[in-house]
């Protein structure tokens, strides 16, 4: 086997070419700019920080400038890694081969608001909170609502194919993007929509539906430079209701009943398992006073026109009561729901096995799992995690969430998440490898239960990425490799992500 493309280092010549194309102020080689864009909040091999630091940061403002950067990268064969808010939890924006870091945050303009056709066209460096502040006076709303809402950015939402807290009512990122402008790895600028080229048409049957190909590709196939997005009326009313249960099994059955209720205003159903409730009772103000008989929680939220929300609330309450739920009160329901739009406020500390507090970073392992498999996956993921906690003592189990995961409905598959604390300062190569092995075991369990490795973060970290060929074994990964090589012949765009270095290995050479 021979690798056909090996990335080159960034030389002075590359820097000069970038400065000539963009102007010196948009090209930064200072250590501060590079350190700040080396990692994301997910647990990181801090002992190998330097391996991931980009050589240069560029801050383009237009599609033409992005195109110029990619052409230079092809000319010199150096890697380019797109980065938006840098909040991704699968390391999509972390350079694996150093190179040029393309920060899109200066591409943050609103290009057009079309109230007649209910669209807004933006550059990808804008974040949803800022967009919605702009939209509020017009009574419209862009409902992409991750738990990183104040800090993640539209380009990164598209790059990861993000999941939204209220997606069961309004759809997730991929459902909210109407069309895209993309700069291909070789520098061409293209417009892609739902088939055809009409930028504001949501449903077409002309040509290939190329838009979706560029959503969730973690910046491996192109750089999004413009997006036309869906607008909804700003909800008149919201109602959050949290219910407690005496067992996980009861809460699980209730989740099924609530999510198949058919209520059109139902925006989310979230199941918290016993370990999550234990964790919250240990470390979260709102849950500490909950009596011990509450073992699991189901959170629900309704959004829409006030009359519809009020009517749906009655039905929701009835279903929850009939399936064993006990209402946890207005204060906890409304307060905890509001805090879910911004989980950066989560206390980043964890416990050693003896209960003492140490600073810990948060790992959120996610997968998409069908409803029938949730109890089994819960058991397996906890068994795996607890085994590593016992052996290494630097991890902490923060429990599991199961979120309704499908657009415009509560049922189907669930975004399953186990939250694990990691004491980063105590990491060394041995414990880092242990961590990666923990992730591998979790991923294997996911695949054994007909799940997909990731529901929203992506599968580009070690421990996940090597299983992409396994999950896509019926020809899907082969097609991914062909597409990558076709669009990115020199492997310059986010190289090695999604295990796509295999696209450039010539298997016949060494056979």
């Amino acid at each position, binding site marked *: 086997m021979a690798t056909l493309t090996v990335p080159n280092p960034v030389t002075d010549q590359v820097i000069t070419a970038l400065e000539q194309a963009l102007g010196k102020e948009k090209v930064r080689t200072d250590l501060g700019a590079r350190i700040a864009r080396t990692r994301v909040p997910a647990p990181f091999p801090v002992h190998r920080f330097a391996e991931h630091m980009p050589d240069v940061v560029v801050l383009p403002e237009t599609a033409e400038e992005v195109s110029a950067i990619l052409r230079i990268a092809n000319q010199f064969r150096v890697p380019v890694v797109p980065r938006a808010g840098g909040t991704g939890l699968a390391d999509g924006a972390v350079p694996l081969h150093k190179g040029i870091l393309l920060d899109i945050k200066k591409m943050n303009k609103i290009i057009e608001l079309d109230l007649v056709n209910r669209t807004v066209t933006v550059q990808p460096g804008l974040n949803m909170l800022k967009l919605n502040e702009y939209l509020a006076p017009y009574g419209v709303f862009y409902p992409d609502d991750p738990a990183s809402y104040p800090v993640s950015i539209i380009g990164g939402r598209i790059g990861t194919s993000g999941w939204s807290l209220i997606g069961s009512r309004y759809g997730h990122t991929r459902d909210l993007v109407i069309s895209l402008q993309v700069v291909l790895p070789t520098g061409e600028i293209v417009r892609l929509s739902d088939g055809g080229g009409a930028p504001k048409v949501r449903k077409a049957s002309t040509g290939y539906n190329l838009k979706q190909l560029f959503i969730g590709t973690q910046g491996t196939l192109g750089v999004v430079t413009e997006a036309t997005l869906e607008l909804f009326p*700003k909800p008149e009313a919201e109602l959050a*209701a949290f219910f407690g249960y005496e067992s996980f099994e009861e809460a699980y059955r209730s989740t099924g009943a609530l999510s198949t209720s058919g209520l059109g205003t139902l925006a989310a159903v979230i199941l918290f398992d016993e370990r999550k409730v234990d964790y919250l009772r240990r470390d979260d103000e709102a849950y*500490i006073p*909950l009596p011990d008989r509450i073992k699991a929680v189901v959170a629900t939220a309704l959004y829409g026109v006030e009359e519809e929300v*009020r009517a749906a609330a009655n039905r929701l309450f009835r279903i929850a009561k009939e399936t064993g739920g006990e209402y946890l009160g*207005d204060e906890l329901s409304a307060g905890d729901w509001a805090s879910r739009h911004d989980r950066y406020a989560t206390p980043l500390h964890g416990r050693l096995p003896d*209960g003492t507090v140490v600073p810990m970073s948060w790992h959120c392992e996610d997968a998409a799992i069908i409803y029938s498999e949730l109890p089994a996956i819960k058991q397996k993921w906890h068994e795996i995690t607890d085994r590593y906690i016992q052996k290494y003592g630097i991890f902490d189990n923060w429990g599991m969430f199961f979120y309704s995961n499908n657009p415009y409905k509560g049922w189907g598959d669930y975004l399953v998440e186990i939250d694990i604390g990691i004491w980063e300062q105590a990491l060394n190569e041995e414990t880092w490898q242990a961590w990666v092995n923990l992730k591998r075991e979790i991923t294997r369990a996911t695949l054994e239960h007909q799940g997909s490795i990731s529901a929203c973060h992506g599968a580009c970290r070690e421990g996940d990425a090597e299983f992409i060929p396994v999950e896509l074994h019926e020809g899907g990964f082969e097609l991914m490799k062909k597409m990558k090589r076709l669009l990115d012949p020199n492997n310059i765009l986010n190289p090695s992500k999604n295990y796509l270095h295999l696209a450039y290995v010539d298997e016949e050479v060494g056979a």
Partner: protein
Amino acid sequence: MKRVRKGVVLCREDLHVFEVDPSLMTRVPQDVTDPEQTRIVRNRWEYLDWMHRHFAHKTVLLSEVTDAPVHGPGHGH
């Protein structure tokens, strides 16, 4: 300071502030003054109110619409 459950103390009854038992905080001792704590708690409530308004014109509570109780089982701790 009142112990409310294993490993957790109630340190500000007026503001409902709980803390990890200080005996478990020896590696990372915390020293937050009362005024600072008051500021943090008030800012948090203000922030959550802002979130409600940002996402919908009105927040409806389950107890307003149904016979659900206003307070949950943990109330009055």
